[in-house]
């Protein structure tokens, strides 16, 4: 391994820091997953309300994954990737909402 540049620049805290990041991500994701499944198991949500609550939980969990597993943050050096992700999210939103809207409308007209 190429360690010649490393000998004096590795702060001993860093590996531990990065490990901790993954552990935080795992814990948060576990908590969010258990809440989502718990709500449905205990029949505490239903219908449109379920869609909203579960949707928000999923969104938070996606952000947790992006932050702690994929390490996307708002730092300056990551702007390109952040732009790429935000732009793709916009496209995804258009595809999903557009499809649902149009097909729903078609369905209503055919009833």
């Amino acid at each position: 391994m190429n360690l010649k540049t490393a000998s004096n620049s590795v702060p001993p805290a860093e590996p531990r820091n990065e490990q901790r990041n993954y552990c935080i991500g795992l814990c948060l994701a576990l908590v969010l997953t258990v809440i989502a499944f718990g709500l449905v198991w205990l029949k505490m949500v239903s219908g449109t309300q379920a869609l909203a609550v579960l949707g928000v939980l999923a969104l938070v969990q996606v952000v947790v994954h992006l932050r702690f597993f994929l390490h996307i943050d708002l730092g300056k050096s990551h702007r390109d990737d952040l732009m790429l992700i935000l732009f793709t999210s916009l496209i995804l939103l258009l595809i999903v909402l557009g499809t649902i809207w149009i097909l729903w409308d078609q369905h209503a007209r055919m009833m």
Partner: protein
Amino acid sequence: MNAPQPLHPGVNLDVTDRKSHEKASEVIFGFWIFLMSDLVLFAALFATYAAMSTQGIAQGPAPSEVFDLGSAFIETLLLLLSSFTFGFAILAMKYSTSRLRLLAWLGVTAVLGAAFVAFELHDYYVMIVNNDAWPQTSGFLSAYYLLTGTHAVHVSAGILWMIVLAVQVMTLGTNPLVKLRLLRLALFWHMLDIVWVGIFTFVYLFGVAA
């Protein structure tokens, strides 16, 4: 080159391997573009599923009759844990001088991934045997098998890819090329877990709760 700069999101190799790090930003950004276009594919499948699962049930079973939440929960845990262990594989690659630790974490990840695929195939089997829920039964089931099947195929491809890279680590060692390949596979694997968050929420949980 003074203070190491993070060149790309994700684990940067700067502190332990400058040479790999300098080549990383380009290939990793390119891989992000692939990942995002892959997500567009999944978005189209999700949209189809959203329309089909409410309007395409026909004479077949409804989502709440065929889904087994317990099994979906186990699959979620398996995939989440595998994402976590892959993170540790990458850290082992970055900091540890022995290949064994990297290979061990990769092995754990592959086994968890394989268990996930096995559970999913078992789900399909149970659905078909108990509910006669074939893909051709209704639009809802076609869309369901297409969406979850595409995801399972991605996971299986990821496992194959992991085996190939494990062989490369054993034969070529952790040279810069192999390291960058592993970094990209890690991104792919984490992204599949994100897609699964969408699947377990909108397919399984919302299917049962609605």
